């Protein structure tokens, strides 16, 4: 659940601009890639839009562990939509989350970067692992766990680099303070890996067309 649980006003304006700019550049590149490719078909947009909605909805279900944590399904998004559309999806999810007070407007840039790293890692691991194992469960679970570990690292990195406004302690102290957060994140990552494994196994069974397998014949 790598997601920076900080609200508006936590980062200084400098870092807000830096992270936003980085995110917008990545989103811009994705847009360029998507538009330069073959004509985007509406089915692809449906899948991306659905992933956005589901990611946001699942975001909202608290699992009653350790004071309430939640899943993000960004690795699954990466697996299902690929890196380019995936970047757009997480960007939109973060905007929606900010709108209901779940993250903060100025944090969208940083959070999008965290999630983009997850999307990319999940997508790459999933593709690479496809050459090693046939089991969709193992592929998806490993890709998810790897992605979430990476996301956690990026998240901690961003917080350490930008610091929290008003916090004057050293990076090392902040890191120590964050260690609990990291531990919880890793536990949730394991849970999410299992769930993603099931989702992908299921999809493989009933809707292989979504996973890029042979096209189903249910119409469009």
């Amino acid at each position, binding site marked *: 659940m790598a997601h920076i649980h900080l609200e508006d006003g936590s980062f200084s304006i400098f870092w807000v601009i830096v992270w936003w700019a980085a995110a917008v550049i990545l989103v811009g590149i994705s847009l360029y890639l998507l538009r330069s490719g073959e004509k985007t078909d509406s089915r692809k947009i449906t899948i991306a839009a659905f992933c956005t*909605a589901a990611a946001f909805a699942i975001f909202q279900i608290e699992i009653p562990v350790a004071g309430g944590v939640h899943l993000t399904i960004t690795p699954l998004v990466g697996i299902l939509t690929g890196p380019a559309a995936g970047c757009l999806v997480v960007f939109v999810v973060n905007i929606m989350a900010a709108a209901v007070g779940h993250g903060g407007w100025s944090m969208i840039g940083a959070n999008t970067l965290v999630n983009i790293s997850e999307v990319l890692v999940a997508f790459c691991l999933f593709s690479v692992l496809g050459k090693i194992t046939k089991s969709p469960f193992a592929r998806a679970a490993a890709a998810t766990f790897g992605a979430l570990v990476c996301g956690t690292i990026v998240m901690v990195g961003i917080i350490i680099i930008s610091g929290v406004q008003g*916090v004057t302690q050293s990076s090392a102290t902040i890191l120590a303070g964050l260690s609990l957060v990291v531990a919880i994140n890793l536990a949730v990552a394991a849970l999410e890996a299992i769930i993603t494994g099931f989702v992908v196994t299921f999809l493989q069974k009933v809707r292989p067309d979504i996973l890029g397998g042979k096209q189903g014949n249910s119409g469009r």
Partner: protein
Amino acid sequence: MSATMVSQHIPDLDLITSYAERNDSFFSKVSPWTKLGGLVLVILLITLTRSLAICSGLYIAILAVYYLAGLPIKKLFAWCALPVLFVLSLVGLLAWSEPGTPIVSFAVAGVTIALTDNGVLLVFTLLLKALVSVTYSLFFLMTTKYEHFAGMIFRIFPSPLDQIFLMAYRFLFLTLAMTGSMLKAVRSRGGGLVRSIRMQGRIFAEVFALVFIRSFERAERVHTAMIARGYHGSYAAGTAIPRPGFVGYGVLGAFSLIIAIVVWMVPNTRGW
């Protein structure tokens, strides 16, 4: 409380939409662009300032606006619980080692950790900032009609980002309804979600997977149903969005000026 709601502390999007569609206060007639401008300025101000006083003043002002718009205060506080929790859980951890005059201190394993006056101040300031941003966002959401949001999204974001955004907004209601009805069904046959995890951990993951796929297929069906009524894969937001009036520009201008004054004139408030 209705079990169809996913959680009481999550803003209920159905409800928000219904307020937005019905609100006929003065604020619902203000141009959405003006409100968007306000949002940017509010966020700018709380990012730039570190002053507890300024944050408190801003919060009270926004709360007053929220109240005047006839929006539900009790719901607002319930919805704010989560952001507050976030701030406390992360900043609350950091606050302990902040240099300053200690208020409480503990010795754990030979290391002394202390909660200082600066630490407490930090928590309060960040908390207020969070409340300001959440309250203003909800105010914005609940006084602006869906078609205006759709129009703004359409104008701000390039394609296909706008399409993903707009369609996702539609599917969101489906997915939330689906999640809610699943929880309802589970509960009405005796499976509290927590107990089910312990009792049948595997089933939980499977159910979760299935809900995902089901909502996906629902979304797909709705999409085909939309196509069956002429959707072309591009939403043409035809609705004209009211432009900001003189008053709107005036308010935004004045607000910017205040920010400039506050940030540059008053010492020790700058967060660079």
